[in-house]
């Protein structure tokens, strides 16, 4: 009798506890989306959902708010950063998983993990005091002076050579997502079965041919999913970007000039906003950011399911 209570009741209580905890987790996620949506409702009502997303004015004096400059800033910075980071990250993953001798692979893998663990603010700090002066003096000013002499039409596209702006933000962002993208690609490459490789080697293939014909096709799904996840990471990245991008909501953006992302806008203005429509607009931007990162994550999920060869063969 006692043992039945101990067994049945215990089991039931334990399951109930787990279910409560699971429900709490789900509640948190739902609440998060709900609070952002309801907080931003006033802005969405005033400007309309699409009107808000595509509005290009952010003016607290005139109470006009639109998220487009920040949406665009987020998309441009994260896409460019990803484009810069992709090949080096893949190269590092291939080096670790395929080419490097074991000791070297371990050292490189360890370093990359270490860098993935470095906080955003530390990248930002380094960006302000090391990268910005370097970018300004070695890249932006020479280019700017050159274009002033030879191609004045370019100057508007380049923007002011101050070091603080899009270029520096994108460079640091690329550095930040490299370790992440690389370790995801590495995981995908590790999943490629050994015998596949060995079969190719037995046929007399070179190392590159093995990579090209077996490893990359096989790990394709994982690598692409990793790329998309790295994009998601770049989209939500806040501190380092805020410290480097120059925080200007003016369109159009230039290469060196200041810009802003959705995350940097929130970091800058949320604590300072006086309330009312501005505050609601900031929460609405938060909601858009949530939607964007959700969409990107779901795409990654989809790719992983559709494109991984291993799944398809089952």
């Amino acid at each position: 009798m006692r043992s039945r209570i101990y067994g049945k009741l215990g089991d039931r209580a334990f399951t109930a506890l787990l279910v409560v905890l699971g429900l709490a987790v789900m509640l948190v996620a739902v609440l998060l989306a709900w609070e952002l949506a309801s907080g931003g409702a006033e802005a969405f009502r005033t400007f309309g959902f699409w009107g808000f997303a595509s509005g290009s004015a952010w003016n607290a004096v005139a109470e006009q708010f639109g998220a487009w400059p920040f949406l665009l800033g987020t998309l441009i910075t994260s896409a460019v950063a990803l484009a810069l980071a992709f090949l080096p990250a893949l190269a590092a993953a291939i080096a670790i998983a395929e080419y490097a001798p074991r000791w070297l692979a371990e050292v490189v893998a360890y370093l990359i993990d270490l860098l993935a663990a470095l906080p955003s603010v530390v990248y930002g700090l380094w960006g302000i005091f090391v990268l910005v002066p370097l970018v300004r003096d070695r890249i932006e000013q020479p280019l700017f002076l050159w274009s002033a002499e030879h191609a004045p039409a370019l100057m508007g596209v380049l923007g002011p050579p101050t070091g603080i702006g899009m270029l520096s933000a994108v460079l640091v962002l690329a550095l930040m997502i490299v370790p992440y993208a690389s370790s995801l690609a590495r995981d995908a490459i590790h999943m490629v079965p050994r015998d596949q490789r060995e079969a190719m080697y037995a046929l007399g293939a070179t190392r590159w041919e093995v990579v090209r014909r077996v490893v990359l096709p096989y790990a394709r799904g994982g690598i692409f999913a990793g790329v998309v996840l790295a994009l998601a990471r770049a989209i939500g990245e806040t501190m380092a970007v805020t410290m480097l991008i120059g925080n200007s909501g003016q369109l159009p953006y230039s290469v060196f000039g200041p810009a802003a992302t959705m995350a940097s806008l929130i970091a800058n203005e949320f604590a300072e906003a006086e309330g009312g429509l501005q505050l609601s607009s900031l929460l609405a931007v938060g909601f858009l950011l949530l939607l964007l990162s959700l969409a990107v994550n779901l795409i990654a999920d989809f790719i992983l399911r559709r494109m991984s060869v291993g799944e398809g063969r089952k």
Partner: protein
Amino acid sequence: MKKPILTALALTLGLALAQSVTLNGAGATFPYPLYAKYFDVYHELTGVRVNYQSIGSGGGIRQLFSGTVHFGASDAPLSDAKLAEFEKKFGTPAIHVPTALGAVVPTYYLPGVTQPIRFSGSVLADIFLGKIKKWNDPALAALNPGVKLPPLPITVVRRSDGSGTTYIWTEYLAKVSPEWKAKVGVGKSVAWPTGLGGKGNEGVAGLVRQTPGAIGYNELIYALQNQIAYGAVQNRAGKFVLANLASVRAAADLADFPADTRVSITDTPAPEGYPIASFTWILVHRDLDKNRAVKSAAEAQALAALLDWIVHDGQRYNEALHYAALPEVAVRATEANLNSLRYRGQPVLPK
């Protein structure tokens, strides 16, 4: 198993330490160095801890409205509309307590230029409108005969957050430039036509210091403490005036002082006055119990005593930090306002 114990330990320790009164304030970055000094000294004197976060005037006002802080701090007085909203929301008026006078100066970083650059109001407006793009622009050169201005592009640096410093700056620009008034207007955060955004007075000063050819606007002490160059500004009488204690005090020398202390002194007519100066205020509820953050009569009394200390004894720390001390008229008006502070109907300052 260790985690819950640690948390419990932290909780009990926290309760033990929370016995001494802690006051939370948030707002303007403009007087932050001064307030940091005040609260450091006041903590040693009385044991009262004042946690002040310089998050910007706009934030300070919002935090006060949402009852998350004991006091807000702002470089811009509440507008009539905001005052009415406050009174409607809380059933008690907001009291403005001026604490100091400060000056906002145009800061810049021009390698190789040693003497202070002279600006006029309209030139400053044109620079911040993005119309004057180079340091060797004729308009600037005309104001600065004998100064070799470099052909550097001008990088405008302004605030990325809501700020009373911005309010003072834009209020001045709107007074001297009709175009500024029409295109940008006056506010704690405005739609800037150009420039890099820095967070807080610190952020703007940090950016100016890092960027050759940059011009920004900062509270005087941020420029002085960091040895950032700042320019002289032509006042309404036509004189080029550098911001200092004397020129700021001259600007505040008002014959008739309003009882609620809400007064603008930018573009002063005083011949020796610096034209971009302002009072900075601490804002509190008159009936302190209407503020959710004020949880006891002891806290209300501590807050009132702090404010009383600031406008009297605290003033002696102003000048060392390059904030002008309050003129006598402002202190008298404020004394009357502080005596009206109440907690559950009881006055909180001993007579």
